[in-house]
């Protein structure tokens, strides 16, 4: 006997993501998720962003990794509101892990929450965490063809960061091709350039500020 069902497979995850969304809204926290390959500079970008935002807003951070709390220790130098999520075998964060991390953050005191996903640009695309915006991070050293090889992450991104632009003079990377490929998949997405370890993260920080002040023109 065939019975029609038509249910979202990730129903539970999506429900928890909705709960996260409501919880963050209640506390008036703007929230972003960082997705990028291992070593693309997600933690470095968060560190420099925290440096720039120091004294301007209260930021909480949750960092996901299979193992270790190295990233949380690095972030801990910039803010006391940091939670490490270890996923064990998991190649991505899910809404439930983020919910548990949120319980350990002082949401009511915070303005911004940054979640660093596990280094991976494939799997995180499927899992809604319930945050306001998805940041997809690519780097000059990975090659300009990475967006076109990973359409799901590009399609779902709210902003694309090209990090390690300090390496552009040393690698073969066609910024125009990179930009055009992204435009094909996601025509209106903003693309910002950073060199996190050099402290050049202004374009990214300005993008965040613009999202948090919808009235202001970016």
């Amino acid at each position, binding site marked *: 006997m065939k019975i029609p069902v038509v249910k979202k497979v990730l129903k539970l995850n999506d429900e928890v993501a909705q709960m996260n969304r409501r919880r963050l809204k209640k506390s008036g926290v703007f929230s972003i998720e960082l997705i990028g390959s291992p070593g693309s500079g997600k933690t470095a970008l968060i560190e420099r962003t925290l440096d720039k935002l120091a004294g301007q807003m209260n930021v909480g951070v949750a960092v996901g990794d299979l193992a270790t709390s190295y990233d949380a220790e690095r972030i801990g130098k910039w803010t006391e509101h940091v939670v490490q999520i270890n996923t064990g075998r998991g190649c991505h964060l899910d809404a439930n892990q983020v919910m548990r991390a949120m319980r350990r953050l002082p949401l009511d005191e915070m303005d911004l929450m940054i979640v660093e996903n596990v280094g991976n640009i494939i799997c995180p695309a*499927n899992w809604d965490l319930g945050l306001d915006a998805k940041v997809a991070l690519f780097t000059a050293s990975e090659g300009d063809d990475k967006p076109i090889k990973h359409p799901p992450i590009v399609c779902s991104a709210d902003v694309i960061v090209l990090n390690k632009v300090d390496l552009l003079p040393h690698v073969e990377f066609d910024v125009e091709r990179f930009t055009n490929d992204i435009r*094909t998949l996601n025509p209106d997405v903003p693309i910002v350039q950073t060199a996190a370890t050099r402290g050049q993260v202004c374009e990214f920080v300005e993008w965040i500020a613009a999202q948090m002040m919808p009235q202001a023109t970016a």
Partner: protein
Amino acid sequence: MHELSIANELLNVVNENTPPGARVVSLSVQAGAMQAIDADALQFAWQAVTQDDSLEGSRLEVELLPWRLECDQCDRVWESPEAFEPCTCGNVRPKVTGSDELLLVSLDVEQPGEPTESLNHSQA
């Protein structure tokens, strides 16, 4: 390997939607191109998560849905196995608008005592 965690979620949704006492013979899932699902990997993961479970041996059918493209120059909407495909009007940058669904669409179940219908055991 996001297929493994998806298979685990699927297990919950199947259990929730199986009538009490029934045995699941097969189930069918639709996955949009944006989900980047590999059908073989999902089927393999399904075997792994249903091992030693009442769902062991159930057959998972995966229908992969194509990309959905939209041309903002001539308003054409079409589907393609490729995410990058110029429009027939010459526009080389049509918009990708989908598909991103991931759905359990049906369950084929057998009530105890009911004769087995082996209509669909032909697939490899």
